[in-house]
């Protein structure tokens, strides 16, 4: 059985769904950030798979490279914010940080 494009896409879709699930169900803010990383990885698999199967792998690598750099920048900022949350609220349970509402 040959591995086709769809195989990769299905794995990436599942990875995306896991990521989304983790984001919305985990209370710990750091775990939420991990979920976001999963989503970005899923998108990267897509980029590479598509470009591989259309014989333009160089483009896919560039796109993936951009996304990886961005993920690093984003997680740095997000973690800094989480640390600040910890300093202010003495806990990082996202669901308890809901003073601003309605």
């Amino acid at each position, binding site marked *: 059985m040959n591995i086709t494009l769809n195989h990769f896409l299905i794995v990436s879709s*599942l990875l995306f769904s896991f990521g989304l699930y983790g984001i*919305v169900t985990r209370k710990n803010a750091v775990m939420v950030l*991990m979920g976001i990383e999963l989503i970005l990885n899923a998108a990267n698999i897509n980029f590479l798979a598509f470009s*591989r199967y259309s014989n333009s792998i*160089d483009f896919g690598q560039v796109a993936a490279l951009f996304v*990886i750099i961005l993920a690093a920048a984003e997680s740095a900022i997000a973690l800094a914010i989480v640390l600040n949350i910890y300093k202010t609220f003495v806990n990082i349970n996202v669901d308890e940080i809901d003073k601003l509402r309605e």
Partner: protein
Amino acid sequence: MTYYTFAFYAFAAIILLSAYAVVTSKNVIYSAFSLMLTFFGVAGFYALLGADFIAIVQLIVYVGGILTLMLFGVMLTNKITETEIKTGVFQVLPASIIIGMFSGVLIASISNNRWTVAEKLNNPQNSLVGIGSILMNEYILIFELLGVLLLIALIGAASIARK
């Protein structure tokens, strides 16, 4: 191709199982290490797809950079004296239903689409030259922009995290 097929399934299993562990494990540290496994699996996928350079970058940046950052995050935001670093979950039922629907629709429509696929796949080549040329020509603007973005991230993170 059998090695290829085997490798695909192996990496897919690693990715999905460890990703599942990331989002369900009660222990934050386990989650973090499962995440590392996921990154490895994804890197394996990249290699399978002929993107050797990105596979290496994935390992260096994610495992070496982001994951370490995460672990620091975990350590800094939990009392070290606690033996078990656990975390709760909430809205599991509605989330499962909705995200289940979401991914169901997504996978169904992806598998029913006729993707444009090249008739004959080229064998992967050393791609560093190609990447470099794209970065310096077509996407030079984005490349420069990413420089600014990293600078902004640096300033921002420092501004918030410092005393």
